[in-house]
């Protein structure tokens, strides 16, 4: 009876992240990895800058460095929340580099890091990735404007994003049968709500 209450989803986002990514290419035209800029919501940002910064000024990068370190240390366990594929096979990432956490004037913090692929891949086959938290504690969403850019890409390469089908109950929409079907057993919210980024080169 209470089984139904106890099992199920505790998962719901406590933290929202607006993602902007850059696909980095090497001089040989291979894809090296993904550079992320994750901007946190106001509540998490307030938590991050708590006790930091002098005279009401936003904290510096140095002041935020310890938090950046603890954040990034546990990213590996969650596969950096970045899931890349090429030709149907999953690609692995190495430890992030160039990690910084910085605060803007409004005390909104952004985590930046480069996530190098374990082995760079040729760009001729479509390369795709998604950013999501499978546990849905963190809700990742791409920025509306220029969500993904290419850096040093060979001529003719293009990037596109595929939005997920809307999942959440629209306030104006009635709860339809389809709504429940979307939450089929074993459904993984993180991935179902994730945008897919596809990079294609000639």
């Amino acid at each position, binding site marked *: *009876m*209470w*089984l*139904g*209450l*106890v*099992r*199920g*989803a*505790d*998962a*719901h*986002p*406590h*933290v929202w*992240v607006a993602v902007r990514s850059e696909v980095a290419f090497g001089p040989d035209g291979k894809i090296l990895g993904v550079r992320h800029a994750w901007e*946190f*919501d*106001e*509540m*998490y940002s*307030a*938590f*991050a*800058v*708590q*006790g*930091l910064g002098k005279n009401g000024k936003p904290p510096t990068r140095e002041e935020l460095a*310890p*938090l950046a370190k*603890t*954040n*990034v*240390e*546990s*990213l590996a*366990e*969650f596969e950096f929340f970045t899931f890349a594929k090429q030709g149907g096979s999953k690609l692995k990432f190495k430890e992030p580099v160039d990690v910084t956490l910085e605060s803007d004037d409004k*005390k909104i913090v952004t985590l930046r890091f480069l996530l190098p692929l374990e082995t760079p891949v040729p760009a001729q086959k479509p390369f795709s990735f998604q950013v999501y*938290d*499978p*546990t*849905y*504690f*963190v*809700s990742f969403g791409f920025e509306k404007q220029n969500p993904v850019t290419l850096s040093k890409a060979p001529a003719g390469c293009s990037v596109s994003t595929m939005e997920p089908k809307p*999942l*959440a*109950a629209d306030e104006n929409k009635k*709860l339809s049968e389809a709504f*429940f079907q*979307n*939450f*089929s*057993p*074993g*459904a*993984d*919210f993180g991935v179902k709500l994730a945008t897919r980024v596809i990079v294609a080169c000639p």
Partner: protein
Amino acid sequence: MSRRSRRFVIALALAAAAAAIALASPEAFAQSGRNPFAIAGGESAGAASGFAGLVLSWQNKFHQELQAAAKALKTSPEAFWTLAGASLFYGVFHAAGPGHGKAVLASYMIASRAALGRGMALAALAALLQGAVAIALVGAAAIVFGATATQMKWAAANIELASYAAIAVLGASLVWKKGAAFLAAAHTPPLPRASTVFCCEAVGDPAHIHSDACGHFHIPDAAALESGFSWGDALGTIVAAGLRPCSGAILILVFTLAQGRFLTGVAAVLLMSAGTAATTGALAAAAVYARETARRFSSPESRRAKLAGAGAQLLAAVAVLILGLALLVGSAPGGGA
């Protein structure tokens, strides 16, 4: 074995299995991995389906409303009422997911013979403790010591560890008591067949006096089976279920503090606790109802029914112990998957 007692045994076995499954579900143990952006430990869990999916979308909605209302406080004081409403519902729906607190509370209600009122009181006190810990943590850490996010995470992780230890201790204490009660029930000799012993006593006599030699025979250790409410265990349950503060409460408190409206945040968190108490109280009531339904089917004199009852309680106690140990191992430094 009578039909009634067979039904009773089946019902109790189902209740015990439900407790075991709920506690052994991957979600209960999925807490080992620490989310990089977690505030008070891994509250997150994986997949959701059906009803849970609906709960999830509501939780999400109220969390966002909470954040929007807290933000609006800066410009309009009347946003407090929106914040209050969102906090209450956030508490209700946040508590509707799985979590060790609810598992401990429900198992305790099965393992002990605590009555409905006591179960509700335990649920309310656990929810209040959860809010109070968040308020104390942010109040002391942030206001008094000007702690940073990293230091608050560290403090929250230690509180979490203490709450898992409390679950293990509660489980061990329940196993000790329920184990003794189960053994007492197991050592009770089976009922002599009524037909084998001549019984001289008047049947239907309201005074109902008879000797042990008579075929009609009471389970001797009924007191051990029926007892089960101890203030120590009750306090242990409140601490085990409510010690760990919730991320949402910490976030709202730090956020309102940053806006110079900490007291508004305190009010919001207390309302969250009220909402949580409503849900966990309903859960406790459901556990009591399930237990009492199972008992109604029983013939009170049936030895097997008593044994099954004691066994179900022991199983629920073991489940609490296993949950506590698993959470402890999972969150110990260097531990976890």
